[in-house]
């Protein structure tokens, strides 16, 4: 096994945890942005990376979560962090409802359908659906989150909230990956016919992947609403879905570390090169082309090996 890998991960985590001490507010805010995209991409990774279902409408689930949180907070004065599970639930149920009739579609067809779903949600929000979403202006006046009596306001405070959620997500998703559920998603991705033929209810796991990935997007939406205090349909356009799709593929579909690394590169690098704003997208496009030609499996491809020989010997010698 690679001994450099755990060390690199510990170092990266330590560096990140202390980052707010030596970065300015703007830089920390970029990190917060990366954290939110990381959360979204980790959710999408379940759908796209682990289960191999082409979803290019992830922003729709993000939007459902953000608007659920915003409406619950502004209309019913529910503290924004309490809306987190409800936002996740709303986005998850929404995903189940839209995925149910289309999830049997093959890769490219599913991709087109999910693009459609993303656009429908955005347009519905712009048109002030049910008179509750505030149209193109969105919803404002979302209250600041409070945790243990501390009002979270500054980027440094949000940093620990957001990256705490990222850390928790990593732990939960790593456990999921090592389980019957996580394996089922992989069987689905590798060969659906063989999966069904091995006794796996493929229809159920496709929906479960969508539901869980979307629930994570929904909770991230609530965090986003809390951070911005104002949300509008613009934040959930098609480009967001494309960027998330890119992060997962670029990072190495199915690899948590790879996906987070890609979130850093895709969201962070453009911030570093702000002065070349006009050339940014050109470089970005070129990098994507080069990556797909020379390293289609992503920066850190998912490894098949998840059991150590030692564990096997100990358990079943």
């Amino acid at each position, binding site marked *: 096994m690679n001994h450099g890998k755990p060390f690199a991960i510990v170092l990266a985590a330590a560096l990140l945890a202390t980052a707010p001490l030596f970065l300015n507010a703007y830089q920390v805010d970029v990190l917060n942005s990366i954290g939110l995209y990381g959360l979204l991409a980790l959710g999408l990774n379940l759908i796209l990376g682990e289960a191999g279902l082409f979803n290019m409408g992830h922003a729709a689930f993000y939007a459902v979560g953000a608007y659920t949180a915003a409406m619950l907070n502004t209309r019913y004065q529910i503290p924004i962090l309490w809306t987190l599970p409800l936002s996740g639930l709303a986005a998850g149920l929404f995903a189940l409802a839209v995925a149910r009739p289309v999830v049997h579609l093959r890769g490219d067809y599913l991709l087109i359908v999910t693009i459609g779903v993303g656009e429908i949600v955005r347009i519905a929000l712009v048109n002030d659906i049910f008179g509750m979403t505030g149209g193109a202006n969105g919803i404002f006046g979302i209250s600041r989150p409070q945790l243990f009596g501390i009002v979270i306001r500054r980027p440094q405070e949000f940093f620990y909230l957001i990256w705490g959620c990222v850390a928790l997500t990593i732990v939960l998703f790593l*456990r999921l990956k090592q389980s019957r559920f996580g394996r*089922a998603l992989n069987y689905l991705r590798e060969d659906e016919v063989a999966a069904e033929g091995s*006794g796996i209810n493929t229809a159920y796991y496709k929906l479960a992947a969508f539901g869980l990935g979307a629930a994570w997007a929904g909770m991230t939406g609530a965090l986003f609403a809390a951070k911005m205090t104002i949300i509008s349909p613009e934040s959930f356009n098609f480009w967001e879905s494309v960027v998330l799709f890119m992060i997962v593929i670029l990072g190495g579909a199915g690899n948590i570390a790879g996906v987070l690394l890609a979130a850093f590169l895709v969201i962070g690098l453009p911030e570093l090169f702000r002065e070349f704003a006009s050339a940014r997208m050109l470089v970005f496009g070129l990098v994507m082309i080069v990556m797909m030609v020379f390293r289609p499996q992503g920066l850190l491809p998912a490894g098949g090996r998840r059991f150590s020989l030692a564990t096997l010997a100990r358990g079943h010698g």
Partner: protein
Amino acid sequence: MMEAPPIVSGQPNTVSIPLLVIQELTKTFGGLTAVNAVSFAVEKGSVVGLIGPNGAGKTTVFNLITGNYRPDRGRIEFGGTPLAGLRTHRIIALGIARTFQNIRLFQRLTVLENVLAGCHYRMRGGILAAMLRLPSQRREENDGMGRALKELEFVGLRQQALALAKNLAYGDQRRLEIARALATQPRLLVLDEPAGGMNEQETEALIGLIARIRERGITILLIEHDMRLVMRACEKLVVLENGGKIAEGAPEQVRRDPKVIEAYLGADDEA
């Protein structure tokens, strides 16, 4: 070519309780009748071979049994339960397991993970149990792992447990598919050309493996082109041609059947 003794000839008196009964099974694709009113039974504990020239409809029969296709007409009963309309994973749960003609492994996963797929439906742990690492979930994972390793041991792939499936030799990939199927703890194992692409040595080992699977009390239905294997491993043959059944009976009897010789064996004087 019959110098080796048939391995099943000494057991003519197995009580013939049919485990799988197929009646008047018919399936058409567009204008083509792939399977036409085929009936036969697979007796409990037996090894039955489904043979016939290419395009005779053998694999279609398999796909009908495992629910990959819906029959247009006819019945399939497994242990008294009609299989019509059941989704494949439900049929697997009833106790039928299969392998595929063109090997379908989870290529980028490990050998062990491939076999764990077969253990899947007997396990219960869901999302929450996995996220919370409940003790019951860990125990279940451990048990599944143990069962998967046992099946790998059984087919002789224990040493390769952590290799990626795509890196296995061809014959090993076939055996891995069998291990994955056995991990579902089936009553009936359906093998689609298990010796396909195997050399003589590997085929010999496969015949031994089939005998050992049978010793576990698992009934076997197989499609095979290798006549040596069919003659030695099966106690009953069902012959298909152009979607219809043209003969059924003991291998010795079937290979003397004029219709079979004309349709199939006649073109292949090796048998």
